[in-house]
């Protein structure tokens, strides 16, 4: 089985890109399944079901979705093997832009959109910096110049990544993208023993443990302070 991890800011078009790409993969007779990771709510699983794609969703609730991802990925891989998939896709939204779910030696795709602003490539950190492929969406509604500038920013932040434009609405570019996702020779039976590409945050503070009161005396553990210069307290 092949495994690909998709990641990207909320509403960047991950699901639309994956759906269009699966159409092309189906044309090649491949069996594709998806596991969607989200925080509080998603009904994207219904969109996958509608086109006959085996799908599971995982809601992390009060936990960080990427931490939840790592704690569950092995079980998810076993589910995919059980369903006899040729390709298993995991989809997760990066929320704080600090974690990224990419695993060493497992294909990693970051989806980001042209509308998100010129400094976004710089802002989203490990999710973009450690990806193998970057898919840029929503190119049909911004100018050619903005597309070129945005792509060049992505290239500056992650020069190794393969950059592609895919339109999640019309599917333009999705066939081409699909040819890069599946590799005959790849066969993953487990991700046990593999490692994340980038560590999850080491921070652990009183608020992680349920503290709700505000004030210095309630702040324990790993605390970082904002630099307000002279005007600071």
């Amino acid at each position: 089985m092949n495994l690909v991890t998709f990641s990207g800011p909320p509403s960047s078009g991950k699901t639309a890109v994956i759906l269009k790409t699966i159409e092309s993969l189906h044309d090649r007779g491949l069996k594709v399944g998806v596991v969607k990771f989200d925080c509080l709510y998603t009904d994207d699983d219904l969109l996958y079901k509608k086109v006959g794609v085996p799908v599971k969703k995982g809601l992390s609730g009060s936990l960080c979705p990427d931490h939840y991802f790592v704690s569950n990925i092995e079980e998810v891989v076993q589910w995919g093997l059980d369903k006899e998939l040729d390709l298993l896709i995991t989809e997760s939204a990066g929320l704080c832009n600090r974690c990224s779910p990419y695993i060493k030696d497992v294909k990693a795709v970051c989806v980001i959109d042209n509308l998100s602003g010129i400094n976004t490539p710089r802002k989203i950190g490990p999710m973009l910096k450690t990806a193998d492929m970057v898919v840029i969406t929503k190119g049909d509604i911004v100018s050619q110049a903005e597309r070129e500038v945005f792509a060049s920013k992505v290239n500056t932040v992650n020069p190794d990544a393969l950059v592609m434009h895919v339109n999640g609405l019309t599917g333009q570019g999705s066939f081409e993208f699909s040819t890069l996702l599946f590799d005959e020779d790849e066969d993953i039976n487990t991700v046990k023993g593999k490692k994340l590409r980038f560590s999850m945050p080491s921070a652990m503070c009183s608020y992680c443990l349920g503290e709700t009161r505000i004030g210095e005396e309630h702040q324990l553990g790993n605390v970082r302070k904002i630099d307000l210069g002279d005007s600071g307290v």
Partner: protein
Amino acid sequence: MYSKIEIKNTSIEEIIKKYPYIENFFKEQEIPIENKSQTLNEIFKNISSIEREDIVYSEDETAEKLIQYIKNMQEFLGVEDNTVKNLSILPGKDKEGYAEKYEKLTIKNGEIISIVGPTGSGKSRLLADIEWTASGDTPTGRHILINGEKADKKWRFSGGKKLVAQLSQNMNFVMDLSVEEFLHLHAESRLIENEDQVVERIIEEANRLAGEKFSPGAQITGLSGGQSRALMIADTAILSSSPIILIDEIENAGINREKALKLLVGEEKIVLMATHDPILALMGDRRIIINNGGIADIIKTSEKEKSMLKELKEIDSYLNELREDLRYGRELKRNNIFSLYDA
């Protein structure tokens, strides 16, 4: 080119001297450079764990990414020389699997080709084949040749230089910048040398195309539809790295379409135009008829058709005058070109 060990132990200053654009790399990577005489190795030695976490990459990874960045940029700069003189499309098959009935379509730069066909007929697929420089590996089985040869795969994956630039009615500017700032940003990403002159020229050409003029200090998001279109066309013609331009249904966009096409063609671009506007279609040298996923025919614009252009333009300018009259609250007047209906 530096090796990984060399680049880690060369001062930032020295690397910048050789490759000036890498300053941008350090800025985007947020690497804290206090002193440019330091090497990457020295910088990483003094970095705090918080800064290290923000950079994401380790010292080795940063060196590798920097080398890759320089490689990409050198390639990007080099590609300007090997221009696309012509593009050929070799036939594949339509949706039913029947072979397309033409031999080989070669389009030279400076040529305008119209693409016509109903929605869903395969116009987008044709464009995608060109953009992907298909070599029998897309659903149509078409092959794309550049300058008569099998196309280099580099066109498929590069971030900055795509084979096809696109302009369509639905596109808008979304950045919060003035016209001037915006053009400088674009020019910077293209590593253009005479930035100021190029920016000035784009604004001048755009104003020539637009009905109403705009100033360099105007916000791009505040431009009218016609002004935006004019700026997009002038910018794409002059600054875009793509040798092929696809124009998708730019109909009555409040710009001088004839001048726009001339500008694009004058910059040695290959212009493909998906349109059902007879005036635009007749400005093309040939038109590709798409049906059922395949190229059904290629028609050369005949002299007889071209002679119709004059009357079509007259009707068009009549309509435009009426629009202007409406806009300025004048009474509509009948044009004498319709006097033959007055029997």
